[in-house]
């Protein structure tokens, strides 16, 4: 497979990797704690998109069984191609985990701001050195 083909077939994954690295870079490079939390959010969002991407089945429709009065409880005459619902369900949990993490991180940032008078990491480190 040539590199052009692999890019066109897997472009969603390339986007996810790019998004993920953007998030990770923000976490590493920014000193502001709130920005770090935002970076962490982008990082998590990339992972969630990864799951959502893998759930897509080409030509698949939303995984809702249509109501067919002729065949109660059955799939009807012809087989319907569904997208995979499982990764979506998993991501509902992952989103909840992400929200909890964000809430906790922000709460900690508020406490840090209360104790240090700043939400900048480098200033907090300097403050600790001066008030050892």
């Amino acid at each position, binding site marked *: 497979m040539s590199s052009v083909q692999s890019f066109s077939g897997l472009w969603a994954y390339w986007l996810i990797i790019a998004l993920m690295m953007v998030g990770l870079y923000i976490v590493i490079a920014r000193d502001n704690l709130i920005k770090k939390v935002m970076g962490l959010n982008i990082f*998590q969002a990339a*992972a969630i998109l990864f799951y959502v991407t*893998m759930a897509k089945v080409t030509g698949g429709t939303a995984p809702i069984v249509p109501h067919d009065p002729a065949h109660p409880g059955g799939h009807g005459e012809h087989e319907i191609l569904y997208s995979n619902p499982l990764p979506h369900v998993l991501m509902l*949990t992952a989103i909840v985990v992400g929200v909890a993490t964000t809430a906790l991180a922000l709460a900690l*940032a508020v406490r840090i701001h209360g*104790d240090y008078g700043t939400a900048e990491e480098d200033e907090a480190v300097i403050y*600790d050195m001066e008030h050892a």
Partner: protein
Amino acid sequence: MIEKIVVLEVVLPLLAAPVCVLVRHPRLCRLLSLGVVAVCLAIAVAVLLEVRGGGVISYQLGGWPPPLGIEYRVSTVNAYLLALVTAMALVVFSFDSRGGPPRVPEPRRHLYYAVFLLCISGLLGIAITGDAFNIFVFLEISSLSSYILVSLGGHRRAVLSAFYYLVMGTIGGVFFMLGVGLLYQVTGTLNLRDIAARLEPSLDDRGTVLALALLVVGVSIKLAVFPLHHWLPNAYSFAPPKVSAFLAATATKVSFYLLAMILFTIFGAPFVFEELRLQAVLLPLSILAMFLASGAAIFQTDLRRLLAYSSVAQIGYMTLGLSTANVTGLAGGLVHLFNHAVMKGGLFLVVACLLYRVGSVHIDALAGIGRRMPLTAAALVIGGLSLIGVPGTVGFVSKWYLVSGVLERGWTAAAVLILLSSLLALVYVGKVVEAVYFRKPAETQPIDHVREAPLGMLAPAWVLAVAAVFFGLTTNWTYGVAREAAELLLAGGI
């Protein structure tokens, strides 16, 4: 009967946590959490006795049969871990910290117990579940509650340390989640045994190799494997002492189990250690951890920080046992889980006693404290000797089997390095013992008013100190179970 009650290991603490929030009475909450943990320990011991010798208990949540439904699956490996976590939780909970963590005012103390119970429930959940995504959820439950627990320490840096821990832990958790996602893409299932059965790992399959990389790095962050350990010394030294004791004794142990389970059960020892040769990375990192972290411990002036760095070094011993990939070495690593939990948990409880009476655990502040607090200081010495690995203590048992396993593998140099690194432990333990017993107290810090720690603190610390000697002399139970667990893991089962 026993198949049905194993689910209570997770359900009881998970239900007790909101009950604590509703009860709003600190003393009642403490009793409730003690009771819950005691029941969990009883169940864990019963389960361990049941599955020893190759038994397996499987519980299907909601009656959905695996691989579609979530399965709780307990073999010797998991039961060992359940017993370890609940036993340590019971000892730490029975420690009467006289007023709880400094940051938590009396009217809010019930929330502290609720978070503690959530943390236990998460750790037990990781150990018990047989579903990959379920592990991620429990991993985050336990991690989120440990961030909160760490942030409750008295110093302002506790909150900053908790924030770092959160950032590192979340990155680790997301890596783990991505690894599970890739495994799901390759195999189409989330049940661990089903994944292991369907996965045919090969170096040509990039998806599988990437999944292994993501899972190993993710768990290594939570385990604090050497270059990823940066969060640990801060978190352990600024957390409330009781929390440090609990996390040092349980959280990293559960992560170690997770790493072993990923390597041996999911991917299998032949792929990881023969085809991929992971030991080429894991072995040097373990040895570096043993030397650099022990070296850093020598230069610490705060006893808690010293013990925290020593924990990083001890994790190095565990991963060294993992990288031998033979029964003796792996059993040495697994038995070190228990042994290290006993000694480090005991030492952190001693720290809590010292903090309560002396007010500081700066090594200079502890000068001459051995005369004022003889029992506390004696427990400190027993824990310290065990860290060095003196015969008659649990530390010796671990190192004996680790060295045997390494020699079986033919790594003579690594065996010599294990023994040499013990000398570094001798230096940092010796430094503390010297201050406590032989140094005169500084005139600026009189210690005449210092009395022995109260019984409610001393007793749990001594339970662990006695255990450190008892299990150093009798290895049938600890090493027996660990060896069985190692055989099971190497055979690819859980």
